[in-house]
Structures are given as C-alpha cells and as structure tokens.
C-alpha cells in the first residue's frame, strides 16, 4: 500500500527538473559497494575457521558413526587413477578412512545417493575390508515422509541389515560378487540381501540401490589401494 503511494510521488516529474547528475549516483553506489564488500570480507574472515571446524566435527561424527571403533580419520578422494590423499590437487569424490585408537585401519566411509520417494536421499556407508562387508549406514540428507519413508533411518530392525552386509568382490576384483538387493520382508536368505521394510518399500529400495552403486564404485578401488590406505594412519 505504502509503496504504491510512494511510486506515485516519484513518477511526477516536477516542473523544470533537470536530468539527474550521474556523479552522485556513481558515488553512492560505489560507496555502498565498498562498504558492503568490506563488511562481507570481515565477517567471512572471522567466521571461516569456526565454520571449517564445524564441518570437520560434523563429518567426523558421521564417519565414526558408520565405522564402529574408529577414533580418527584421514580424507581421500577417488580419482581416475584410484584413491589419492585429499588436498593435493586431487579431484573426485571424498572417502574417509577411519582408524582405531591403535592406528589400525577400521574401515572406509564412502557416500552413496539414490532417488527415494520424494527426492534424492544421500547416505554415508561404512565398509570394513576385514569382513568385506558394509558395517554401518547413516542418512545424511533425506526428505522422505516422516513415519513411513524415514524408517530407513530410524527402524532398528531394518538398520540391522547394514551391520554386516556382504560386499565381497568377484575373483577379478572389478565388481561386487553379488549385487546388494532389497528382498521382501522376511525372505532374506543371503548376507548380501537387505530385508525389506513394510511401509517404506520405495525408500528401502532406494537405500539398497545407493548401497549397491556406492559399493560398486568404491570397493574395487579400496581393495586395490588397501595398503596405501593403511599406511596413511595418523
């Protein structure tokens, strides 16, 4: 309401008004831009260390949750040549290698994603090379329906599936020996099957697909570069 009134007064060119001089406009815009830039940079500098620390704690918590026994982590990225330590110009998807208190390799956490009922669900899976299986899972981002689809993150019986989910490789070491699949509730017979969950069929399928795709992508590289990963102990 008020804006309309204002616009009317603005649009009335007074008698004899000149074309506005451009210098004050330039001066004002430049001045405000400088002030704005200064403020943003100041705040950015002040908050950057805190934000980085927050992010580190958050990832660490997630990694330690999916890798039981891990107390420290080292970041790697999956490049086309295999796994390489993060931060040396290596570009690719991040994986986190977890180590126990005795500097012993406890496992590798890697991300997975699949389309669920509402939107893409993002997961973090923990893989233990010792048992060649997935030992933990965590939903990082999900918009599944509360009470139905979000059971994949809360239902303890369903999460049991991800405590020792077989992800062993074929003899050539290039792909999973058995694809990870979701089966109907109560019909799980093999360690690479996920026992379904009633009321969250689509979300459960998405989680199985995400686990399978992620394992297919990361596990062959992890097994090949296992020595390199173990040597990276902090």
């Amino acid at each position, binding site marked *: 309401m008020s804006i309309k009134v204002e616009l009317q007064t603005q649009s009335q060119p007074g008698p004899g008004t000149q074309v506005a001089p451009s210098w004050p406009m330039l001066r004002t815009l430049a001045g405000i831009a400088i002030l704005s830039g200064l403020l943003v940079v100041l705040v*950015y500098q002040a908050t950057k260390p805190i934000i980085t620390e927050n992010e580190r704690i958050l990832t660490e918590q997630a990694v330690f949750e999916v890798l039981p026994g891990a107390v420290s982590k080292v970041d790697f990225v999956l490049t086309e040549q295999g796994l390489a330590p993060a931060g040396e110009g290596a570009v690719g998807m991040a994986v986190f290698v977890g180590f126990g208190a005795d500097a012993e390799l406890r496992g590798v956490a890697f991300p997975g994603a699949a389309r669920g009922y509402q939107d893409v669900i993002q997961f973090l899976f923990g893989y233990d090379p010792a048992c060649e299986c997935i030992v933990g899972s965590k939903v990082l981002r999900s918009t599944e329906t509360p009470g139905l689809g979000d059971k994949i993150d809360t239902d303890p019986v369903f999460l049991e599936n991800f405590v020792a989910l077989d992800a062993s490789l074929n003899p050539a070491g290039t792909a999973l020996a058995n694809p990870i699949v979701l089966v109907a509730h109560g019909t799980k017979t093999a360690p690479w099957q996920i026992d379904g969950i009633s009321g969250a069929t689509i979300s459960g399928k998405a989680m199985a697909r995400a686990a399978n795709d992620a394992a297919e992508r990361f596990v062959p590289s992890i097994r090949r570069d296992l020595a390199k990963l173990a040597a990276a102990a902090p």
Partner: protein
Amino acid sequence: MAELPNPQENLSLDTFLRGLWTENPVFAMLLGMCPVLAVTNSTMNAIAMGLATTFVLVCSSLLISLLRNWIPKQVRIASYIIIIATFVTIVDYGIQAISLELYAALGAFIQLIVVNCVILGRAEAYASKQRLHTTLVNSLGMGAGFTIALLALGTVREILGSGSILGVALFGEGFQPWVVMILPPGGFFVLGAWLLLFNWLRLRKERKVMEQSGVAANAG
C-alpha cells in the same frame, strides 16, 4: 499507513506496537509468506528465522536511514538491495558458524531473506524518510511482529506435528504425530487458522465500535 503525509514521525509507543498488531507483517499485511510457510515446521527454526530476519531488517533499515539524504532516488532500489544483501550474507555466515545443523534446516531460506518484501518495504516506506531513532524502534517492532508470527505457526506445527516444543516431548511415548503439520501443507493450514482467528477478532472489535458509536444504524 496514514502516517505517510507526516514526513517525520515522532517517536511514540505506537511506533513499536504497530509492527506487532495493526501492521503485523504476516497477519495484517501478508508479506514475506515464503519463510512463513517454509521454515516454521519447528519452534527452533521459527525463532532462528525470525531473529535472522529481524537482524537484517534492523541493520539495513538503520543504514538506509543513516544514508537517506545521500542516496539519489534514481538508484535507491539498487542501493537498498546491496545493503540488504550484505547483511543477509553476514547472517548466512553467522548461522553457519553457530550451528551447521540449523543451517541445513533453514536451507536456502536464509539467502532468500534478501527478497523478503517486509525488508524492502520497510526500507522504501519508512527508513528512507524517517530519522534514525524512530527507524530503529519501528524496525524492531516489525521484526518482533514477524518473529512472533513465525513462532505462532512454529509452535502449533511442532506440537501437532512432532508432539514437542523446542524438541522437548510433551505427550510421552504413544503420541501420534500429525505428519501433515510438518510438511508444507501444514503451513497453509495453520496460517489459515491463525488468519481466521485474527480476522474474526478484528471484525468483532469493529462491530462493537460501530454499535457503540451508532454508525451501524446510519450506514445500514
């Protein structure tokens, strides 16, 4: 806003209270609906969003009021937007530093404060004409009104949708959450219910005033 013809408002209690009731940005003017509907699924989100918006509103209004005689009217909108965007960026970093969890919950709606019409509306209609201290009081009132409105939606939605307030469970184990309330449609339902209540109160008050002054009979 009948105050407009008066170029410089004198500071009064009404300068603050207007934002809470008669010109409440949400319940009276229906401005800034995007965060109102999107991030009020819990009390915490509502408070955080309300405070962030209030911070941007107060800071940008103050700066605009301070520079009001210095900004040529041809470039005023551009200037206002830069000033508002600056404070939104500051809030964005600030929330990331305070809690990444909260940052994830509020999502893109922090950045979207920049296009919240409550703020640009205040800058254009009030801060660009009024003195510093009345601007401070007025924008604080508007910010408080906005925060209270978000809180009114957020608490109802959290109580029904999760059975808790600020994450503290109210009803114990067996409570059945009304899932729809924390989903987007719940925002519309609750906003509609509040508007119904406030309009009903307003109409009742108006009717009473009319009856007392006897205007009703003449107008009839």
